[in-house]
């Protein structure tokens, strides 16, 4: 613990912080001195004491049995969930039929024309190319399945999110209630949302859509609320002075003023929905995600890639088009509805033409089978790159080394620690960085994991997270420092980051499986790749936003660039660095958990196993533990005192 204090206070308010930090440490030490011997005497064991666990398997098992038994008879299911589920199935199916009915030419034309109206010619061409590529890869039907599911899920998410956001944006009381909930939902791994909906709806499209809605609605709600609250007070006052009713104010001023945030919300919701729609293949979403899932299960990298590329293309196109829609300036002239009418008419014409020509389905002759060549390439890599490459070793060797030298020691170390000392470390870290409230939440979340009886696998997952975060931070900070110091490097890096940040978590598994095989190391590698762009971006931004006057003055005093970095940039960018750590941890956890699909083991595996075997109790407990782990990791790394938001 002493090392912790020595290393943390290294910035401007050092005196104050040290002062407060010392107080906190002393308090914790005092509490520990009293509690630890007691706890140790009562439940002396290295791992979480069995006496303190509550076995939820039986009640959860019987609950899920009850639900399964009553799904067709109980009024709650018949008259509520049943209708909900039917409505989802019908609407997804309807959209799917429409998409198939429009034919590949019609869908491509519609996509391209909408992109043209919203974002210009370049993106229109890009959109058309992306759709054609999906067909070319032989993935037209799964792409349409995913798209149909997305359309329904996004519409529902936007509706739910906008309503919640409206409530929070207009009523401060509602905002107070919703904000912590939405904040917490934001940091939860997508995976954790799957099980509860499966419990109620069973595997299938309804569960997939609802999980997607639950996952994708929060950003819409947050941004809607933000936009409504951030409206220019002067404009609102002027509008009120003209005698508007509350409704007029909302429709003519508040909502139009929040347009940017609303479009950003739409963009984020679409991206999150895509990400989730792909992951939801685990609970029967079908479509592209399912193809990836199946292919990964049989380690068929070629097939996984063929389904993964359309996902990436969809993600990039959707992100760019909706992003461009949000970026349209207020000052731009409205080109009017005529152009839209032309665009839609054009799409209809193409669709009808395709229909008349009998070219509805993507012609088989036009598909390009990339699975085989890719698999050959992977085989070659397995043969030549996996191991035995002179001097540098092979990728599999690296993975093995990473596992034996880093993952194993960290995991074994964590699991060997007495349970109370883990709680103590969590408490100390989170209190030093945040408030006593965040510390309490973090400790309770960690303890809940023990109580759920999944202490050991949770620590396994935690070890993967810690190792991956460490790698991410080292790589991310180094890249960010380079990008912050060289404009050229920054310009080169930016488009790469843009693409990487839009991709759904799931597709990161494909290349790492190709490179490293299966196991814990590839899961960690996928997590690193997924979290890296965000960390680099936040850090670069933080370093670049350092007050130019401070930089100039240190420059004028003759500081070397190393001194400048160490003494000016890093200390001043401290909030950004902390945020980068927080984001890194949250993102890494999200992927490490998904890594259960490719041999990551631990909690992620338990969840998949539970789903696959219909053993919902195991899955649910693991899912709950993931939630707790996410909560704990977020709180431990969240510098709440310096943020405007409330504590836990």
């Amino acid at each position: 613990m002493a090392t912790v204090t020595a290393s943390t206070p290294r910035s401007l308010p050092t005196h104050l912080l040290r002062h407060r930090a010392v107080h906190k440490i002393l308090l914790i030490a005092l509490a520990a001195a009293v509690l630890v011997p007691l706890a140790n005497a009562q439940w002396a064991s290295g791992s979480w004491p069995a006496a303190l666990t509550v076995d939820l398997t039986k009640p959860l098992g019987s609950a899920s049995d009850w639900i399964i038994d009553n799904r067709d008879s109980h009024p709650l299911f018949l008259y509520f969930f049943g209708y909900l589920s039917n409505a989802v199935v019908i609407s997804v199916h309807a959209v799917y039929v429409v998409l198939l009915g429009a034919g590949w030419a019609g869908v491509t034309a519609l996509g391209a024309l909408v992109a043209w109206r919203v974002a210009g010619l370049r993106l229109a061409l890009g959109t058309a190319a992306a759709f054609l590529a999906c067909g070319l890869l032989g993935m037209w039907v799964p792409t349409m399945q995913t798209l149909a599911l997305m359309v329904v899920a996004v519409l529902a998410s936007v509706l739910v999110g906008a309503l919640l956001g409206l409530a929070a944006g207009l009523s401060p009381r509602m905002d107070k209630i919703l904000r912590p909930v939405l904040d917490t939902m934001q940091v939860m791994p997508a995976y954790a949302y799957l099980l509860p909906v499966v419990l109620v709806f069973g595997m299938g499209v309804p569960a997939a859509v609802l999980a997607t809605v639950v996952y994708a609605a929060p950003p819409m709600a947050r941004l809607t609320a933000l936009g409504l609250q951030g409206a220019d007070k002067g404009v609102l006052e002027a509008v009120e002075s003209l005698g508007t009713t509350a409704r007029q104010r909302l429709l003519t001023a508040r909502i139009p003023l929040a347009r940017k945030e609303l479009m950003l919300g739409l963009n984020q919701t679409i991206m999150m929905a895509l990400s989730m729609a792909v992951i939801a293949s685990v609970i029967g979403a079908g479509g592209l995600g399912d193809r990836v899932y199946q292919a990964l299960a049989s380690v068929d990298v070629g097939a996984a890639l063929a389904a993964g590329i359309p996902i990436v293309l969809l993600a990039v196109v959707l992100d760019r088009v909706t992003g461009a829609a949000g970026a349209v300036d207020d000052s731009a002239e409205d080109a009017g509805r005529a152009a839209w009418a032309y665009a839609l008419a054009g799409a209809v014409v193409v669709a009808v033409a395709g229909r008349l020509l009998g070219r509805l389905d993507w012609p088989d002759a036009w598909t390009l089978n990339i699975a085989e060549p890719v698999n050959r390439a992977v085989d070659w890599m397995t043969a030549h790159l996996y191991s035995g490459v002179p001097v540098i070793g092979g990728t599999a060797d690296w993975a093995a080394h990473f596992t034996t030298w880093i993952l194993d020691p960290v995991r074994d170390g964590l699991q060997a620690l007495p349970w109370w000392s883990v709680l103590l470390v969590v408490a100390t870290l989170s209190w030093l960085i945040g408030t006593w409230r965040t510390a309490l939440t973090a400790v309770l979340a960690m303890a809940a994991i023990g109580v759920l009886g999944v202490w050991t696998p949770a620590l396994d997952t935690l070890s993967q997270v810690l190792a991956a975060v460490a790698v991410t931070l080292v790589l991310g900070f180094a890249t960010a420092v380079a990008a912050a110091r060289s404009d050229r490097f920054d310009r080169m890096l930016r488009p790469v980051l843009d693409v990487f940040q839009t991709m759904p978590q799931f597709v990161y598994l494909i290349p790492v499986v190709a490179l490293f095989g299966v196991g814990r190391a590839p899961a960690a590698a996928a997590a690193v790749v997924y979290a890296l762009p965000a960390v680099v971006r936040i850090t670069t931004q933080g370093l670049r936003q350092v007050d130019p006057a401070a930089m100039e003055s240190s420059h004028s005093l003759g500081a070397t660039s190393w001194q400048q970095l160490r003494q000016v940039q890093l200390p001043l960018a401290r909030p950004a660095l902390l945020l980068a750590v927080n984001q890194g941890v949250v993102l890494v956890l999200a992927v490490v958990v998904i890594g259960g699909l490719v041999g990551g083991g631990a909690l992620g595996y338990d969840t998949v196993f539970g789903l696959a075997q219909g053993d919902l109790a195991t899955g649910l407990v693991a899912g709950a533990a993931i939630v707790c782990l996410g909560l704990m990791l977020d709180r431990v790394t969240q510098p709440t005192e310096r943020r405007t938001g409330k504590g836990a």
Partner: protein
Amino acid sequence: MSTTATMEKPPTTDNPVFSVDGLWKVFGPKADLVPEDAELAALDPADLRERTGCTAAVRDVSFDVRKGEVFVVMGLSGSGKSTLVRCLTRLIEPTAGTICIDGEDVRAMDKSRLRELRRHRAAMVFQHFGLLPHRTVLDNVAYGLEVQGVGKAERRARAAEVVVKVGLEGMEQRKPSQLSGGQQQRVGLARALAVDPQVLLFDEPFSALDPLIRRDMQEEVVRLHREEGRTMVFITHDLSEALKLGDRIALMRDGKVVQLGTPEEIVGSPADGYVREFVRDVPREQVMTVRRAMQPGGCAGPTHPGALAPDAVVADAIKVVAERGGPACVVERGRCLGVVDHERLLGVVAGTQLRDGSPAPRSSEGASGASGTELRKEAV
């Protein structure tokens, strides 16, 4: 400038449009207790804050705004003037006191009546314009009419007329972000004018503008007032703006009105040291009229040499007296009211002479020294 403005102003009548009596606005916990409690009400701002945690932005303010006049509320930032003008249409809810518009109690109005007041009777122009960024100039101007439920064609036609009136012809289809600050404020002004309100309220409308554009806009307001004779309540922190535009000026400090009067009264007979300090650098000859400067009593002859109107400012009288080389008469409807000579005029410029002809009281801070410098400055 002010000469023409004051001389050609439409006549004001004595019917008050706004009648404000004992108005209080207190921010903070249990704010409504402060005005009722005589002891708390008498505290100065710092003590009040310490005792109750409340800030009194407007303290026991009373005034009437007469029909057709430009009523200026002037004060430095934090004096409560912006809060005061917002209380008039209850954009900020007053804590105590009464506000009447045309004899109707504003504080007793229900929601729909209040909306009616804001829609038709009082329109406001804001310091930061408050335009809707997603609408064109024309639709911004028409917004007030849209809120009233006027049909699209009619409101656009009416808005187009007002756009011309404020000199924005040809910019109807631009968005606010494409306009300069001065143009944006013209849109704000047009939006207020479009609803044809009984009273125009201005909240420091020109503070955010460059000096030259500010002068243009001030002249625009003078012109509009001359043409339409609309009642205006004008908030400003700029003394020269207040003197230029105001028929009457209420000078506020710490939420209280310290003096209410015509520009001439404020400059000529400051109520206290604060006001005197405030008006110290005002060129008196531009504000004071010969009615004040003259030696009362008619001249002997029937010719009335010089023949100045009583509303003429001292600067004009100086010209006449200098050209004649002797005293000039002040004449109203063919009757001689008094005589001004160079001595009395100089006395006004120096600030040493008051209405009754006695020397101005000297304040202990050495007002005479200040006046002395000023005299020299003026003479150069």
